[in-house]
């Protein structure tokens, strides 16, 4: 679950941000406590706290004294914006690189993307998408 290369606190922050992004943690909803997250992810509580502090600094979470951490209003839109900026580097560029290696051009890619999106919407089966890619 945790990738060894990057600081764990940053990965925890990213994971919580991911939960905000997909609505698992709704805006104005309470976030599990440091202790709960520490036990759940089996990570030092101080490390979890550091990750949370990062999200507070980014305005994703805010603290209610004596109660706990909550997701800020507008956090989701802000995170989406951030991640869209990184989307090209992290997802599109590697995709294009691998496609190039396999001798697939832009048209093939467009067709595959359409197929996979269609398959995802219809059956949601990754097996079908793989079959379509053939």
């Amino acid at each position, binding site marked *: 679950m*945790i*990738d*060894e*290369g*990057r*600081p*764990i*606190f940053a990965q925890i922050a990213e994971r919580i941000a991911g939960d905000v992004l997909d609505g698992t943690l709704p805006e104005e909803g309470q976030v599990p406590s*440091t*202790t709960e997250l*520490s*036990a759940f*992810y*089996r*990570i*030092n*509580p*101080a*490390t979890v*706290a*550091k990750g*949370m*502090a990062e999200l507070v600094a980014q305005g994703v979470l805010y603290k209610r004294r004596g109660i706990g951490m909550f997701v800020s209003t507008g956090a989701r839109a802000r995170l989406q914006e951030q991640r869209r900026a990184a989307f090209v*580097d992290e997802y599109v560029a*590697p995709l294009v*690189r691998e496609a190039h290696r396999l001798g697939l051009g832009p048209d093939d890619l467009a067709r595959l993307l359409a197929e996979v999106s269609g398959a995802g919407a219809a059956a949601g089966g990754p097996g079908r998408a793989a079959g379509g890619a053939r």
Partner: protein
Amino acid sequence: MTGAADGTAASGPAIVAHGVGRTYGSTTVLEDVDLTFEEGRVHGLLGRNGAGKTTLLRLLTGLDRPSTGRVRVLGGDPFENEGLAGRVCFVKESVVYPETFRVRHALRAAALVFPRWDADRAAELLDAFALPTDRTVKKLSRGMTSALGVVIGLASRAEVTLFDEPYLGLDATARQLFYDALLEEIGELPRTVVLSTHLIDEVDHLLERVVVLDHGRVLLDAEADEVRGSALEVVGASGAVDAFVADRRLLRREALGPLARATVAARLTADERRRAEGLGLDLSPVPLQQVVVSLTGARSADVRTLEEVPS
């Protein structure tokens, strides 16, 4: 008590070793050890057998005295220091109890020594480890002896708790139990923990600070997060690998026909990462355990250059 929960930095040093050396006759076990263990943090004390870990722990807990230098624990000299007895808990490999002592006697003794003793926690852990309270300590198996040490170490709630390879004889399930209970304990009541261990992979995510001893000296003393990701494995066509690692510190290189795998001490920028990908190289981070292995397995000449890497 909320120090860790707030994510604030540690409040001060719990343990300080300054220029500490220990010799037995003509054998030097520790040499020139300078260390600071911050209050409320979890430290890993790592290194190969014979590196001096246990000797250092014995000095920190006043069971032995340094030949040179000095040690301070919670502001005092730990040697023959009654005042520290209830504030420092040392879980070591072999504890000598009176011949007829049963498990429950050991726990009662611990309850008397440690003012913050948590009897409920002790009972809970005893149950989890399935320790028979009526058995004499002498007749416990290796694993049960370790479990008893772990129970006392965690339930003591001592300000400074030191574990010296507390897992001997414990199976994977029991070790997980220990790690989970440790996390829960420090979450509830942050305290200074020193964990001497060889099972680095298992405790990796529990550690905040890492100290590696090698031949009685401090080889590495750094934030765990800095050590993780301080080395990198590069795999690909050997020409490309060599071109990419040319001006970097090479820890290890292996070849298989046209392929090469190089481990380098490096932290890459996004640009360098892109360059590597452009060269068709696969990059993967080296876990903490592998960093320590390559540090302590390297020849001393290589080690000196490595020492500077994570700091």
